[in-house]
């Protein structure tokens, strides 16, 4: 009896020491990190060790506390330690902000004056917003269909080639490149120097146009068409994604079905349209919705290439402009809510798919 009391009080002292240690590491590390800004290399190494170490330490300390709980509530306490940090972060960073953005969207820029739907009236009537909606529609329709169709063609063709891996790797490569990096790459492709004697176009596209006897153009300033030149960048970046997923779906088609079709005298095109496409349709839908959502939220390419000028604005860029250039928090929040509403059909579809799989298992 006495022993258990002693070990209990020892436990409490130990836990107390652990908590103090954790607080010390967290606060001390943070202050130290702020003061290391001038010795960049050391700062980086310290940031990595401290950042990762603190999280591991926190889990350990929380678990020690949970283990010290009475046996009855211990399982729940341990589960809380395991799932708690994720739940707290998700609640703080995604669930609550959705509600807070909704709340903010009903107020004016000062955040005090309740204006109800005024910000939404702006979002659906402002000429710049209407232009952005129209452009996003272009991105969603053409960007998505080009990615999926090109990805499908390349997946089918490379499936029949001996050099499949190499071709696929080359198409896939841009997926590792940032949109900003892609921005530089394509700005250089589209570069335009103007007219005059002894001017050599250094952008590949204009050089080709000139070599074919055409006139150099400043591609990014051509209204309406410049949207397509930007969409081309996304297609370049994302076709690899569509290709990889579709390619693995194509490889999942049972060989017997194709053999049987061939026995019946079907040619390659008939096999493609009557067997391949129907068989991988669910995957095509998944890929298309992923890219659709992606093009809805698209920001970086437009921001870097044109800043949304020359008739290329998109919703996500206007969101940024409203909040960070014009300081119109209410309007920006309303735009964010509109973006969320646009994703709801996909969200519901995802949940349905998820439910379906649950019941099968």
């Amino acid at each position, binding site marked *: 009896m006495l022993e258990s009391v002693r070990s209990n009080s020892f436990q409490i002292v130990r836990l107390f020491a652990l908590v103090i240690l954790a607080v010390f590491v967290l606060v001390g590390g943070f202050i130290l990190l702020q003061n290391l800004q001038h010795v960049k290399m050391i700062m980086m190494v310290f940031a990595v060790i401290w950042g990762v170490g603190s999280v591991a330490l926190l889990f350990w300390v929380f678990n020690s506390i949970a283990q010290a709980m009475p046996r009855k509530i211990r399982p729940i306490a341990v589960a809380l330690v395991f799932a708690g940090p994720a739940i707290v972060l998700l609640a703080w960073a995604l669930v609550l902000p959705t509600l807070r953005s909704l709340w903010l969207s009903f107020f004016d820029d000062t955040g005090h004056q309740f204006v109800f739907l005024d910000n939404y009236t702006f979002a659906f009537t402002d000429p710049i917003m209407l232009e952005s909606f129209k452009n996003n529609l272009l991105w969603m329709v053409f960007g998505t269909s080009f990615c999926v169709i090109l990805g499908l063609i390349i997946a089918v063709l490379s499936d029949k080639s001996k050099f499949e891996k190499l*071709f696929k790797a080359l198409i896939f490569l841009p997926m*590792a490149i940032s949109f*900003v990096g892609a921005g530089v790459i394509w700005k250089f492709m589209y570069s335009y120097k103007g007219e005059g004697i002894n001017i050599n176009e250094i952008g590949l596209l204009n050089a080709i146009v000139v070599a074919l006897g055409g006139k150099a153009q400043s591609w990014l300033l051509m209204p309406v068409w410049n949207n397509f030149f930007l969409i081309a960048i996304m297609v370049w970046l994302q076709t690899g994604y569509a290709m990889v997923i579709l390619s693995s779906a194509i490889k999942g088609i049972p060989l017997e079905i194709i053999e049987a079709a061939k026995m019946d005298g079907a040619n390659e095109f008939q096999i493609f349209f009557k067997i391949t496409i129907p068989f991988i349709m669910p995957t095509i839908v998944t890929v298309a919705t992923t890219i659709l959502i992606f093009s809805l939220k698209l920001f970086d390419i437009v921001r870097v290439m044109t800043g949304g000028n020359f008739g290329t604005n998109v919703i996500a860029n206007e969101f940024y402009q409203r909040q960070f250039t014009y300081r119109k928090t209410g309007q920006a929040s309303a735009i964010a809510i509109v973006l969320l509403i646009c994703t709801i059909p996909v969200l519901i579809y995802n949940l349905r798919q998820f439910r379906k799989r649950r019941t099968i298992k």
Partner: protein
Amino acid sequence: MKKTKPSKISSIILFILLLFIAIGWTVPTLGVFVTSFRESKDIYSSGWWSVLPHMEWVKTSEFQLAEATDPNAPITIEGHTASFDEWRQGIKVSENKRLRWYGNKRSRKIEVYEEKLLGFGANLTMQNYVDVLQGGEISFDDGSGNIITREGNNFGDAVINSLAVCIPSTVIPILIAAFAAYAFAWMDFPGRKPMFVILVALLVVPLQIALIPILRDFTAWNLNGTFVSMWLAHTSFGLPLAIYLLYNYVSTLPRDVFESAYLDGATPFVTFVRLVLPMSIPALASFAIFQFLWVWNDYLVALIFLGDKNRVVTSALAAMIGEKGQDWHLLTSGAFLSMILPLTVFFALQRFFVRGLLAGSIKG
């Protein structure tokens, strides 16, 4: 589909078609890669493809005409007679020699051009990389003889900042998500199922919805511009996918493993660290590559939470596009520097990346 045996001709057509697509896909990147090694004055005067072997008119020398030469009358040089305007355009005096009047009528300067074969790699340099990594003042030749001086973008610091943002932002969500995935898969706690449904819903929620409220919190907590803010943001934004991927993996692990560990008296924590984490390495690796590429290539989150303090590579590069949109020697070398690490990771671990992609699409 297994490889079928197409006829020879159609397989050649197929190869050429694929080759055509692959070249088209690679050329834009190749252009930036090649340009980043060219001297600034070359970049502005000729396309990057001119590093390929080709015949080119190269200026070899120049000479001055006698003061007495009348530019308004026909002029005879090396046996050819022509007007000033014709000389100004340039005249071919022999098979591989051209003469051109330089400047206005008073200059009386003649430039001699000869046609030469230029091979691979003429005038390549590492100077662009040296320049772009530096802060401070840098200068370059713009191709028309002007020396231009610019404030450097200090890309070196940006790379270090990116590492300081990226590594913790990749490891921390893995840690938190692995714990959570284990809890969702193998533990019982109130609200487990509805919370997981919410998590699946969060997979497609656009980030924009969260940016303003989180920015307000960071401002209130005085965290704007710190690495901690980036870790928090990226960890939270990466969690839904991380938990979802890891849950799918962890829930397929055999139950007996945990049970025998519990029977041996191991706590869930020990079981998790000793058994679950090592067994989940393939899934962890898939997500790690995903998250690393995402964070390294992210621009929006860095732009909003870091601002101009502690610029990461993407924001440094974007700032460079804004400030020096025509300084291609800096832009291309900067772009390539920003791509080296993700491309290496990508090629080294492509298998895991593809596996993650496949698992990540909801319809597994």
